[in-house]
């Protein structure tokens, strides 16, 4: 039987942190946090082995609440700090948690290069298609035509697909879920954390306060219902036409491949450098 919410809360939330948290009622961030904790529980990792690094934004506050080695970095840079931590101490299990603006706008360069570099890191990207904390401006994943505080006439730019972007950039493992599919989300995070190499889990989430309300989708429940409707599994998507997939969210594992992991490759470099020195 999976552990109860209360058991997870007692085990992983920081009792000395002065709550409440910053998230709005109904925010998907809590679901993602729950999914992460269930995955970690199943993996039976020690708290000391885990480093959770975030950028800035609503998602950026998640590490504050959790009793791991936690780091709240500058906007867009979580993956760069995570890279330093992992390279300095490869024994640590490093997870970067980011929002869509964080990971793909200001941090877009770091995301593609982290994927290309293929260190053994896990990136969880909470994609709610908006800058929530700063008041609802458009992000690189805001859909064309949407209304935001900086696109009141309708958004004229086109959205990134985070998952497809990171597949192309060379990540070892890429998967997508929504916060409606909470059980799938924790399975995907578990797989990502076990996978050697750079692993990305994109989780489509709701910002009903900034996005749902303005775009007349409704409250948190309405947004979750819309994710349920839009979702199609990778298997089913393979049988569908491109046109049919236009407004759908493909969920499941999009890429899972074995590529050389640079954290491991660097061990070889060290051996080579040492033997060269000994020859001298």
């Amino acid at each position, binding site marked *: 039987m999976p552990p109860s919410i209360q058991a997870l809360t007692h085990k992983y939330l920081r009792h000395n942190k002065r709550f409440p948290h910053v998230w709005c009622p109904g925010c998907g961030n809590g679901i993602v946090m729950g999914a992460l904790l269930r995955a970690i529980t199943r993996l039976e990792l020690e708290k000391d082995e885990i480093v959770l690094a975030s950028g800035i934004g609503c998602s950026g506050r998640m590490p504050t609440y959790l009793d791991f080695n936690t*780091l709240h970095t500058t906007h867009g840079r979580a993956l760069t700090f995570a*890279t330093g931590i992992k390279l300095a101490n490869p024994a640590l299990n490093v997870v970067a948690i980011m929002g869509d603006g964080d990971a793909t706008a200001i941090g877009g*360069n770091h995301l593609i290069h982290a994927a290309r570099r293929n260190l053994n890191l896990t990136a969880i990207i909470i994609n709610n298609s908006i800058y929530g904390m700063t008041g609802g401006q458009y992000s690189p994943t805001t859909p064309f035509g949407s209304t935001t505080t900086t696109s009141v006439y309708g958004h004229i730019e086109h959205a990134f697909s985070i998952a497809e972007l990171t597949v192309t950039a060379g990540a070892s493992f890429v998967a997508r879920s929504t916060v409606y599919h909470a059980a799938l989300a924790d399975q995907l995070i578990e797989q990502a954390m076990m996978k050697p190499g750079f692993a990305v889990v994109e989780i489509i989430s709701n910002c009903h306060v900034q996005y749902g309300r303005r775009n007349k989708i409704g409250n948190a429940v309405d947004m979750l219902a819309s994710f349920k409707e839009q979702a199609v599994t990778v298997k089913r998507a393979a049988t569908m036409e491109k046109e049919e997939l236009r407004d759908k969210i493909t969920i499941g594992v999009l890429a899972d491949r074995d590529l050389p992991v640079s954290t491991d490759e660097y061990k070889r470099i060290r051996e080579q450098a040492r033997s060269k020195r000994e020859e001298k």
Partner: protein
Amino acid sequence: MTEAKRKRCLLQGNEAIVQGALAARCRFFAGYPITPASEIAEQLSVRLPAVNGTFVQMEDEIASIGAVIGASLAGVKAMTATSGPGFSLMQENLGFACATEVPCVIVNVMRGGPSTGLPTGPAQGDVQMARWGTHGDHPIIVLAVSSVLDCFTITVKAFNLAERYRVPVIILSDEVVAHTRESVELPLNSEVKVVDRIAPAMPPDWYKPYQEDARGVPPMASFGDGYRHHVTGLVHDQDGFPTQNPQEVEKFHLRLSMKITKGLSDIQLTKKYYMDDAELFVVAYGSVARSAMRAVEEARQAGIKAGLLHLITLFPFPRRTLTPYLQQCHSVLVPELNLGQISREVQRVNQRQCAVVKLNRVDGKLITPHEIYNRLVKLDAGRVG
């Protein structure tokens, strides 16, 4: 057993920085290639893996300092090296390292600016940026190197200060120092004094990551060694959690400043030449200090009572060292490869006791000993007349 013997070697400044970093037990470098700092990255990419360290070339300078801070949080001494434009990009994360008290070393081999500037021309235009480039009030230590031997010893010193005070330390070099080759005798690793950060001694449950000790510097736990804690660039309380409580916010700022103030005598490094009986003197740093040294020697030979105060620590500015000489002398000459970034500090400290004279070059060329000498002669004559 044969005793290890010091060897003489022909090195350029950038190579001596590499030697100094390794001697100080730096084991992590992340950087992005930029002239005239690239040799530091190139050499460390070869040498770090041999000592079980790590080199990584990142996608840009922002990523480089991010990785450096991450590595330091994981318990490894870390550095990066760059030049002006790259240093500009690093500013935000530099502020992060100040706020979170993460020891690290950033070398800025200055080149002409602003913008892409003069990639291979010497300049000292980043002095005030090193002090105030990132937003907000914050402590920082800025050191300047003027010779190849300096590059070694000051780099070791930079790591030691970073670890002792939990603060980023900036080394300002310039193109002349970086690429000039000199024959130097470096100390053996066993002769180099290396300072490490203080690890917490209390049980993990008792650890408060930002609780000050008598020096104002909290012990520092590394990620993975059992002291789970939170690190954030937000203003935080002594437990490391974000706070907006005015008392805690003020305490945060004051402690950051105070820890540096308490260490001033340890941090503020200067060298004095002919200062005891000087009637006029030169304040100089970096490659310009070399020209100034020669000029002062020539002035002495010509019977002028000139001296040189060679600054190694630029910030915190060594006010207490300078003040007595401003009272003793009638004039001070501040030659710089910028339009007067340290002369502002000298003027600030001076309080109109002594004539502060600038000598500036911003054409990508060195200030020669001759130029400084001529000004000293004029200053001396002006007083006599």
